[in-house]
């Protein structure tokens, strides 16, 4: 008798445990916002909307794009909201008919250039590719001033950047730089032995720890680490930062669209943007929210940013990834 009791107990355990794993009524967001920041955002959003639970799936934009494409192909889309760091990608999502049209409450408060003209997606944050250096190892006067400087001898094997196969911001930056400087730019970086790591937070960590002296990375991460006392400093390159609006889109087939719109409303609201500034050191996408200490506001930012041809990036995504891979990764 004992055996069959153990047997039944084991089967029951499987079901009991499974009930722990299956989540409650929630909305699932696919995002590339770094986990610690996203956890803070999630907490403050759930405090504001106690009836909604946010299930965060955080990974690199490239990984999430691959995941979404597999899910679409297998008819098993899990995401309700996507908040990724590749502006161009949303055009292709829209063309595939995967996005839902919606109007956030305060859409008009958004600065121009941060929303889709057809109303399918709205930038919840703007992130910027810049240069960072370790200020224990490099003096301000000796730090790189422009993108071109990174191929100088003194940065040989001392510079690091993120992998565009994984990071959406990196693919946008590669696209922007290539349309301005051509692929020769990356050939020179390879000759200068620039290393490629997975994501931008890896880049930031490796510069702060002194593994590399300098690198190409996102502005808000460096602002955040600097505020926590890491020996890291950011530099806006003379030939232009690369500003990447990171839009929020709602999937067309979601069954919880009102909760999703609540989330978009929250992020785009004054309070939401203030949270983003406070928790993530992001540049706000609204004119009526103060940027983080010492940082430019979005209008000033766009003035010093490099021209970025989003259409070129959208249409040549695979080619850019491949070509970059051939030069830098293999």
């Amino acid at each position, binding site marked *: 008798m004992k055996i069959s009791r153990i047997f039944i107990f084991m089967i029951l355990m499987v079901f009991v*445990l499974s009930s722990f794993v299956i989540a409650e009524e929630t909305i699932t967001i696919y995002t590339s916002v770094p*986990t610690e920041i996203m956890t803070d955002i999630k907490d403050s959003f759930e405090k504001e909307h106690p009836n909604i639970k946010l299930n965060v*799936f955080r990974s690199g934009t490239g*990984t999430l794009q*691959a995941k979404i494409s597999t899910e679409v192909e297998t008819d098993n889309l899990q995401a309700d909201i996507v908040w990724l760091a590749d502006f161009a990608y949303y055009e292709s999502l829209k063309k595939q008919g995967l996005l839902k049209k919606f109007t956030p409450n305060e859409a008009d408060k958004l600065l121009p250039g941060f929303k889709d003209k057809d109303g399918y997606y709205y930038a919840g944050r703007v992130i910027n590719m810049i240069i960072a250096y370790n200020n224990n190892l490099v003096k301000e006067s000796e730090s790189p001033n422009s993108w071109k400087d990174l191929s100088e001898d003194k940065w040989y094997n001392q510079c690091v950047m993120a992998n565009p196969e994984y990071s959406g911001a990196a693919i946008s930056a590669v696209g922007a730089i290539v349309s301005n400087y051509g692929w020769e730019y990356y050939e020179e970086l390879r000759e200068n032995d620039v290393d490629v790591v997975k994501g931008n937070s890896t880049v930031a960590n490796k510069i*702060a720890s002194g593994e590399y002296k300098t690198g190409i990375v996102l502005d808000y991460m460096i602002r955040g680490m600097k505020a926590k006392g890491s020996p890291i400093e950011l530099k806006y390159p003379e030939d232009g930062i690369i500003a990447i609006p990171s839009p929020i889109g709602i999937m067309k087939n979601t069954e919880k669209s009102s909760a999703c719109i609540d989330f978009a409303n929250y992020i785009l609201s004054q309070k939401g943007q203030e949270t983003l500034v406070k928790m993530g050191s992001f540049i706000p996408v609204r004119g009526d929210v103060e940027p983080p200490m010492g940082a430019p506001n979005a209008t000033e930012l766009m003035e010093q940013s490099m021209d970025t041809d989003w259409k070129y990036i959208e249409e040549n995504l695979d080619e850019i990834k491949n070509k970059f891979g051939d030069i830098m990764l293999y």
Partner: protein
Amino acid sequence: MNFEKKTKWLVLGGATLLLLLIVGFPLLLIILKSFIFEGELSLQHYINAFVSKRNIVAFSNTLQVGIGTTIFSVILGSSLAWLVVRTDLPHKNIFRTLFIIPYMIPPFVGAIAWSLLLSPRNGYFNKFIQLLPGINESIFNVNSMFGLIWVMTLYFFPFVFIITSGALERMDPTLEEVAYASGAGTFKVMKDITLPLMAPSIMGGALLAFVASIANFGIPALIGMPARLHVLTTMIYSHIYSGGFDGIKRSLSLSSVLMITSISALLFNYFYLKKKAFTIIAGKSMRPNLVKLRKWKTPFFILAIFVVAITVLAPSISIFITSLLKGWGVDFSLQNLTLDNYIYVLFEYDLTQKAMKNSFFFAFSSATIAMILGSFIAYIIVNYDNKFSKFLEIISTIPYTIPGTVVAVAMILAWSGNYVLNLYNTFWIIIVAYVARYISFSVRTTSSSLKQIHHSLIDASRISGANWLTTLKNIIIPLIKPGLIAGWFLIFMPTLRELTMSILLWGPKTVTIGVAVFELQEAGYFQISAALASLLLIVVLIGNFLVRLLSKGKLGI
């Protein structure tokens, strides 16, 4: 057919069907699909795979890593085996246990430890060496082909060690004694008698090490990829991670190539070596003479301690210390040490909490399901000696002998909605993959216990009027219970730490411990991934020792 017969056929038939469905079908599918290009039978996938320079380089790297690891594992594993079995090395029984520990350490945890120690930029050991006069730069670079082979050897040499030490124990000592009596010296006896006798066992261990090293994902991903060193498993991972569904299609032919490589190695073992293996080892247990080390005793003892320090201590310490650091890159002064990372991982961080919950659930469920299913398959194999049961036995062994990466790709192909069931992104796809991969453990342990039940017991039960189910419940299951429990743990432990398949199958709700450690490490949160890895290491080691203790040393991973 009466009711009893019906239930028997229903249960056994159901188990067979389930096995064919979750193991046979996906593997058949992956092979078939790799020969179909745009709806037609063709070799185009293979041609595409071998036109791409990246893939060719990855294939050649895979072979180099495999062969390099095998050679070093043989040297290390067989000499250590000789040392603990055939010499009078002090404390050799303790060493025998210690040398097996690397086998229990999850390879990706080893990879993390060794990148912390030997990273060319700020590896602890590299920094330490620079304190010596005259050395101003890092000497070791783990992110290289040599580094890859080094780390793999440290974690895969136990394959050779375990098999060789077992064979050395069972070896017929009279052959050696005759040689000694004829005047041969120790060295000559080893070269002309011991080594040739051991060669088939060493070869068997070597092939296991080869197959394990080409199938491994964690080590090349964490150590090779930063240096642009790709192998087949990491190529498949990159395809799937950056190419979406097209990437899965592109990875098909690479998966087949990987599968064919490891199957050829095993077939080689089966057909070539099986013939040579048996004549030379005595059936009876005889105590072979111990070689007296004399003046070499101390040097060899120090060497043995050194091996333990390198394989077990140094990596564990480096991970553990890192897990106590406040921030990455700070120095090891007392005020920089903290337990915050553990508190964060256990109580605050959503991802790691979810990962632990999921991994325990996946390991528990797959061990339970695999044991139940595997026991019925074992029952068929033991009780029906025909071609079909032989076929079932082979089917159940395949998933463990081929790389986990291939099993995962096969699962995605089969269970993502094209064939009735859509398990993609759910926890079921992970459990099904775990069950498929580890079912051979369950079949093996259960069938060896079943074989020990004498038929008279079953006959007695039947004569007393018990039906099949009652006999199963009252006679068979109680008798094989120890085997069932051991088998359950043998599946629970490796699935708890699984990475290779999980990394390709996880979704928004199904993160596992292995995946969380890997992702945190790749994102540069070294202290946090080290904290989670330390916890995993502690659980796995304690679990293993418990199993060894419970089974009185007979089992354990």
